[in-house]
């Protein structure tokens, strides 16, 4: 059965790779925005050195990591969500139900394939340009990079779990776009895409640390910046895993409800 899901992931990877112009345009966008944000951060840290416990080099590095992850873990939503949305509109969603394949598993596999492609094109490429243009603090030890990739993978699971729940609302609302737009704002803010969460004051900071969104950008960035090592790193993985488990389980439960609704009430 695993064969199906690896084929779906492989297919998704190749699918994204067929759109070369979109890929190039996307990589350029991430690079340009990385440059703008990094310059802004440099100015900010020049005025307030050591803000949030980051020095200026770390802050600039943080921005480039966040640009590399933005599309890879789909902080703004997207990926399989676009496909599911199109299938709601066309009614093809009915076809998905009579296939002997798990709906959630299918889309997770597809999202993993997409993320793998975008990690290279929209992650590694902008990061490499950033490293040439700015003075970044990146680790030399391969182990840290491996730890980082594990955190990214777990962050993707959390992101998928959230986006899958958003997409499932389409079974009731016929169109998940509104929910998705609201989620995009929340997600961008609480994931640490714009600013490290350490800069959020008081209650807001506390909230940001317990919500699942930090698993997407803030936590992987901290791993690469080696701010989380040893026991602290294990706690970070545990936090990501726990959220991934909760969200994926919730996705399964809601999926069962959705299928029941379609099958019993008629879509």
């Amino acid at each position, binding site marked *: 059965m695993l*064969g*199906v899901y690896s*084929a*779906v992931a492989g*297919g998704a990877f*190749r*699918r994204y790779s*067929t*759109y070369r112009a979109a890929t190039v345009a996307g990589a350029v966008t991430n690079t340009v925005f990385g440059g703008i944000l990094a310059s802004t951060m440099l100015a900010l840290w020049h005025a307030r050195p050591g803000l949030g416990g980051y020095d200026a080099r770390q802050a600039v590095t943080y921005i480039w990591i966040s640009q590399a992850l933005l599309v890879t873990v789909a902080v703004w939503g997207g990926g399989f969500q676009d496909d599911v949305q199109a299938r709601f509109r*066309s*009614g*093809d969603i*009915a*076809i998905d*139900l*009579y*296939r*002997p*394949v798990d709906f959630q598993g299918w889309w997770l596999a597809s999202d993993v394939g997409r993320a793998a492609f975008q990690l290279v094109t929209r992650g590694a490429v902008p990061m490499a340009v950033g490293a040439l243009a700015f003075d970044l603090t990146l680790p030399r030890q391969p182990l840290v990079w491996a730890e980082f990739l594990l955190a990214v993978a777990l962050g993707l699971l959390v992101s998928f779990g959230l986006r899958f729940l958003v997409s499932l609302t389409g079974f009731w609302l016929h169109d998940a776009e509104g929910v998705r737009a609201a989620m995009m704002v929340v997600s961008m803010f609480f994931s640490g895409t714009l600013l490290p969460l350490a800069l959020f004051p008081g209650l807001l900071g506390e909230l940001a640390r317990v919500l699942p969104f930090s698993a997407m950008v803030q936590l992987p960035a901290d791993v690469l910046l080696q701010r989380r090592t040893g026991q602290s790193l294990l706690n970070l993985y545990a936090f990501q895993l726990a959220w991934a488990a909760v969200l994926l389980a919730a996705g399964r439960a809601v999926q069962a409800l959705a299928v029941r609704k*379609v*099958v*019993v*009430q*008629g879509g």
Partner: protein
Amino acid sequence: MAVIEVEDVRRSFTVRTGNGRWRREKREVRAVDGLTFQVEEGECVGYIGPNGAGKSTTVKMLTGILVPSGGRLRVAGVDPAARRAALARRIGVVFGQRTTLWWDLPLRDSYELARRIYRIPDARYRANLDRCVELLDLGALLDTPVRQLSLGQRMRGDLAAALLHDPSVLYLDEPTIGLDVISRTKVREFLRETNRDRRTTVLLTTHDLTDIEQLCGRVMVIDHGRLVLDGPLEQLHAAGESERTLVVDLAAAHPPIELPGVRTVKVEGPRQWLAFPARQSAAPLVAAVAERYPLVDLSVREPAIEDVIARIYAGAAEPAR
């Protein structure tokens, strides 16, 4: 052995209609209302009816993606809604207006995926794919992304995808919709061969009556959620009270021919069109005409199936409830 058993199956939907600004009225619509039929293994059955008659609802229930509100349903011996995943391995479904193919990738990738979804053994997969590629002329298309295929090519691609796992039952919903003559013929030939050689049971929903005439030995007509006719194609004509037409050419223009049991439908110079009941033999009529009029030439026209169906729909329009 009956592959599809449908016994007094019902399905109703609750429809809410906006009524003023706040109030909403609930109304129950009976899409399928006491349907009973059986389809034997290896049969090819045409399932026709006007839009909204309950055809798609029936097919959805037979695939298990919709639960009946009442009655009993068995496909290949299993209850579709209760065992949807198990059933999916034994049925193939093609919706003419939907596709199961992978839009951005070559056709071949979709088949490779089907192989894994249905866990088709390698040898069987290759044999089935080769057969489909040959009969449906897909060879040159295997490496083309699906989004670049024409409608006819895509349809053929979808047909192949639905048959790679050797389903014992195939549901087809408008498989020739929007196709040109050549693609239509190819699709029909393929379906005929599949039905004949593989003993695949086929349930064909269509508005194209040529599909039915060329493929199906049996027709079921549904209207308002009930079967109004179920039998061989010839029975359709009887039920439709259809008429044949005798076209006669006389030596010269004549006033309309008058004979018992015959309506003269049209007169055009020396040519006249005479309608008579389809069940009645043409011979005595021809003799009667020849005896009384200067007959030069004649031909008999069979009733068009479209007209027959239209008459059945019209007759069933207001069923007694």
